[in-house]
């Protein structure tokens, strides 16, 4: 390698300077219009916002219709909060425990919330079986789109296709495991009854 071949990383300046302003402006609409950091809206970082529209120092408090779960890192329940899906049942108890006992800095907080999510999903799937609209994995996963939006054609040659095969396992796996456990439990119970 001659000195002229040594890559930029090993010498003082880049060997291939950027194209000129004129060249870039001709090729890219708007090139450089925000070159000056002062034109960039998030500069400086901690800008005292002019008028946000707020006409209060501290917002009026939203009525709390149930003891709202909150992070223990908060001094109190925030003045405004979401009221969607209040905690209920076993998943609700797990979620309330996660909020009451562990801060956001503790892995246990998040793992309990993940467990709560899975318990919530299973409980609701089972409960739906007793309704006029049970969960339907065919319509709810949208797999119909595989036939209407080129499922095979779209995946041809793609590097992520190899883990797409895992998706049915992630969706259906818990159901299969639950069914196997239930069948085994029933068989064991039946055998016990027969022995008596």
């Amino acid at each position, binding site marked *: 390698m001659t000195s002229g071949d040594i890559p930029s990383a090993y010498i003082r300046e880049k060997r291939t300077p950027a194209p000129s302003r004129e060249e870039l402006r001709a090729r890219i609409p708007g090139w450089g219009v925000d070159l000056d950091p002062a034109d960039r809206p998030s500069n400086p970082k901690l800008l005292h916002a002019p008028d946000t529209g707020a006409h209060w120092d501290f917002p009026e408090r939203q*009525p709390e219709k149930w003891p709202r779960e909150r992070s223990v890192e908060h001094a109190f329940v925030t003045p405004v909060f979401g009221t969607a899906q209040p905690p209920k049942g076993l998943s609700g108890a797990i979620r309330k425990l996660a909020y009451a006992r562990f801060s956001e800095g503790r892995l246990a907080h998040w793992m309990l919330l993940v467990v709560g999510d899975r318990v919530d999903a299973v409980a609701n*799937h089972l409960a739906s079986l007793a309704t006029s609209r049970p969960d339907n994995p065919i319509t709810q996963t949208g797999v119909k789109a595989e036939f209407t939006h080129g499922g095979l054609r779209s995946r041809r040659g793609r590097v992520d296709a190899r883990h797409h095969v895992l998706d049915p396992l992630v969706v259906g796996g818990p159901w299969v495991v639950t069914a196997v456990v239930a069948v085994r439990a029933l068989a064991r119970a039946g055998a016990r009854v027969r022995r008596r």
Partner: protein
Amino acid sequence: MRAMVYRGPYKIRVEEKDVPAIEHPNDAIIRVTLAAICGSDLHLYHGLMPDTRVGHTFGHEFIGIVHEVGSSVQNLKVGDRVMVPFNIYCGSCWYCSRGLYSNCHNVNANATAVGGIYGYSHTTGGYDGGQAEYVRVPFADVGPAKIPDWMSDDDAVLLTDATSTGYFGAQLGDIAEGDTVVVFGAGPVGLVAAQSSWLMGAGRVIVVDHLDYRLEKARDFAHAETLNFAEYDDVVVELKKQTDYLGADVAIECVGAEADGNLLQHVAGAKLKMQGGSPVALNWAIDGVRKGATISVMGAYGPIPNAVKFGDALNKGLTLRMNQAPVKRQWPRLFEHIRNGYLKPSDMVTHRFPLEEISEAYHVFSAKLDGCIKPLIVPGTA
């Protein structure tokens, strides 16, 4: 009203729900006219975000018509056509007073580490989102803005997150004139980040992805060079070769929790949920830039720890900058750029689905079928 609801990982359906009510004097109820599915919605859909409850309505990208206002609302009236930033924020706390709208401390009782977001689990406050016919919008005097007459609905809905986030991502890169910028991910946020990098004076923009149709869009829409990582044994080495062994001056990571490129990381992060997402793209960014570079992270990750190569970041003297975008802070400048023709977000829209077909919409977007880049959801078109 009709609304999309979550039924568990990979499962959603449309249900009848009550029209939301005013719960605070500064609330408004918006009738949604157009919504979008965001790449980050897929993290919820796949069960990656803790405290995503069955029955939750997703959707943080939406526009609509004001249907009802609370008693203290001064800036909006019934019938106004409005765009709503994905951030829910009060406009008056320590953070909002300093322009950090996405870090508002008065709207998310469930967590202090993130602000409020519509339809994005209870970890971001437990607010139902806009993939529905109606949605509750807190702090109506602060977040929403009337859509200018000249702006199309498609451009407006894309400004509520994707466009603002991509542009914000380029800003956090602190791009200097002539910089080489590498953008990981050619989804809507990455495409806008690439375009915005030019506006900030980049000398070269390289977009990395593995989907050819998206890379084609990056070339046409964002005038970028492209690199399909599936064609190389090691994309980091390729980036070094293409930058004369320096690495890029700036990286903008627009992929987040479900990155491909490493089967083990993807399965551990995105499928088994053993970490807060797959940090493949972030690790490539860390290793693919030059020493002393800046990395801007726009990809969304969950709160569970990730296997990020922090030692490399330290030893290379990198500056890592990241945040959820404070959307409304971007709007005045972005309105100018759209009006001047420098940005045209609506060109990224590839699909429109009626709300009643939202299960198919999620599947198409999640599996990246049919050349999907940005799907819109139209309520009331069953």
